[in-house]
């Protein structure tokens, strides 16, 4: 068992485009759930809409990458409006079921063979990175540069830089938003919708705005993930939504840095376990498991972590118990 290799793999996960995409998605979900109290169970749908909007704009319409990213964002806005209009007047769990259903509809539409020329069906889309990579301002170098486990190629560094800048901008934006009057109304809606309505605020409109803002941030997560890897419908499954929820609740739903911490921790722990458990099986420390089963054990543990978090520490690592008590 090569402990160093396992730790290195785990550390490398921190800066991968998948983790950065997860961080952004968790921040968007924090806007939805943590601050507004919206039970969005369609996170994967928002990510898929962003990622496919980005990839299809480049592949089918030949647009430059930054226009494509803008179209991905626009697609998320439209998706949020479609979801919000029928459900935001209803009780929270309706929104949960409708968003999860809508995310599944989105995935099935990208998966069906009927639109294969545009969506690539089950194979997904690839080969749309040329324009994005060409805009890389970094000096030319070959091979991997960096230190220790964080050694990446020039293309990878470019994705990481764009992703991290986006995360910082989004964090500042959400921080400013949540201490603004708008943010106070949003948090008021989470605590007691009727009280906010009694103060003369249009709750429906505020919820819709929050759904759009959070949805755009989640879609940015999808776009950053797409910049680093291919787009595949099998990524945007319901489980993906649940993992992002786990990450958010781990860090603290109603906090600014909670989603960042939660998403990074989620991936670090997941990478550690999926490297460590098979290694333990190999040296015979887990005699009752096969290598394949130990990978499933990772997901069992993630589910268990989600249950225990919600039961015993619903405010997460950074949260304040008074701030979020799962109202409703």
């Amino acid at each position, binding site marked *: 068992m090569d402990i160093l290799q396992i730790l290195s793999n785990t550390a490398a996960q921190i800066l991968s485009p998948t983790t950065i995409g997860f961080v952004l998605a968790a921040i968007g979900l924090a806007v939805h759930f943590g601050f507004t109290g919206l039970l969005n169970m369609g996170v994967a749908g928002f990510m898929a809409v962003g990622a496919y909007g980005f990839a299809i704009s480049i592949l089918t319409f030949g647009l430059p990458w930054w226009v494509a990213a803008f179209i991905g964002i626009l697609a998320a806005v439209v998706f949020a409006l479609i979801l919000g209009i029928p459900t935001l007047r209803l*009780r929270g769990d309706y929104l949960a079921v409708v968003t999860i259903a809508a995310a599944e*509809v989105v995935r*099935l539409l990208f998966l069906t063979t009927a639109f294969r020329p545009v969506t690539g069906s089950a194979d997904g889309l690839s080969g749309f990175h040329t324009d994005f990579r060409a805009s890389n301002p970094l000096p030319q170098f070959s091979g991997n540069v960096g230190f220790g486990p964080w050694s990446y190629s020039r293309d990878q560094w470019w994705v990481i830089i764009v992703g991290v800048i986006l995360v910082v901008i989004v964090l500042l934006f959400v921080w400013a938003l949540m201490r603004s009057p708008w943010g106070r109304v949003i948090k008021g809606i989470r605590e007691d919708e009727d009280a906010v309505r009694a103060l003369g605020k249009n709750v429906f409109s505020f919820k819709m705005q929050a759904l759009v803002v959070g949805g755009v941030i989640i879609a940015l997560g999808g776009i950053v993930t797409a910049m680093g890897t291919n787009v595949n419908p099998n990524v945007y499954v319901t489980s993906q939504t649940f993992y992002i929820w786990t990450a958010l609740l781990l860090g603290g739903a109603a906090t600014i840095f909670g989603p960042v911490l939660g998403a990074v921790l989620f991936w670090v722990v997941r990478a550690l376990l999926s490297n460590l458990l098979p290694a333990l099986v190999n040296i015979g420390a887990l005699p009752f498991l096969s290598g394949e089963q130990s990978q499933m054990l990772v*997901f069992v543990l993630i589910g268990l972590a989600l*249950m225990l978090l*919600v*039961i015993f520490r619903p405010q997460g690592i950074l949260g304040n118990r008074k701030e979020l008590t799962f109202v409703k």
Partner: protein
Amino acid sequence: MLTSYRYRTFRSTAIGSAKVIPRKQTAGTVLRMLNQHSTPVPARRRRLGTALIAIAGVLFALWATISAPPPAHAADGDPYRVSGNVQLDGAPLPGIAITVDGPGGVQSAETDADGKWSVAVPERNADYVVTLDESTLPEGIAVVDDTGADETPNVREVHVGPGGRVSVNFFIGAGERHTTSFFDQLVERIINGLNFGLMLALASIGLSLVYGTTGISNFAHAEMVTFGALMAYLFAVVIPWPIWVAIPIAVAASAVFGYLLDAGLWRPLRRKGLGLVQLMIVSIGLSLVLRYIFQMFIGGGTVQLPGSVPESLELFGSVRLTIVDIASMATSIVVIVAFAIWLQRSRIGKATRAVSDNASLAAASGIDVDRVVRIVWIVAGALAGLGGVLWAYFRPGIKWDMGTSILLLIFAAVILGGLGTAYGALVGSLIVGLLVEVSSLWIPADLKYVAALVILILILLFRPQGILGRRERIG
């Protein structure tokens, strides 16, 4: 007692209208339900006895072809290749005529002794039309399209991509050749839809009951469905006992599973006073845990219960029905009717409806709410387990995520019918089942669930409380 069910008291202020539901009205409903001896059983209205007539053999048509490497007898020097493999139940079919039309003109091929064929074509990045001549197939079999959407499944359009190679698979099975009339297809779909809907009803009634009595939107309900199928597999294949012994044991095991979930998890959490949203997320975590534990036991593949590809009975036209279909529908109907009588007539059934209506009031009238909730979990487990066994025959096959794949349809059915109402779940399930099956006449098979989910979203626009639901639940 009252405090432990505090969370069940829904906020009665309806959004927009600030309407307050008068307590008296709710109380009246509870008392009325307690005194009610009316006998309407919606299930009886569905005279399925007369409708139990037909189903398509095509459903069980086998995936009989696999992609094959190009055989050695390629016709000429053209660089790119369209090839395939024609098999029935794994046995190669030789001498089947295939024509390929496209750039380079019409070319023909015949399958060899291994059932393989191949045509060399001059261009890639081009479209070709591949036709299998059905008159060269043995008597009684045909190229089938289990979606029913394709009028001529023996004609396929393929695209030779940059790779320059494509394999074309035809689905060969016992089925009528592509002359099936639209009416026959429609009848097939409707009967399939009823079968699917009844199976869904078994699963969704339990979910709706649990929601009605405890307020939990139980995402782990899908795993209770899978559990039933897995138990049937354990007792019918692993042990192996006869299937008619295994299924009742599987249902009993599912009931025990439902009881254990309540006693081991949900009751302590209710005592702890967790909110509804927290309970929902706990159920999501539980669903992940159970799903991957199932996968640890049976792996990622599909296993079959005995008799899952049975003889089919020909009825009229191309409409066929298998013994399993008939047994499945009959079982569903009998169980649903028995359940309806139980819910309507028995003391505990009435108590269940009372708790579902207003838990605090039911507790105040002397109903042991904890006991009712426990029984609801047992019943929900048993119904979901039976639904899982039938789903394993309908798909067909047992897979670790088979329950999850219909979880959203179950939710759609429950919301369509009205959250928390048992009969609503039945009506919703039949609608969803029919919608899924009949819509595949027009839309691609891999999009058939989409129709049901879109309808779910649309119905929330116009009648958010569902078909049989009550207004006060939605605020």
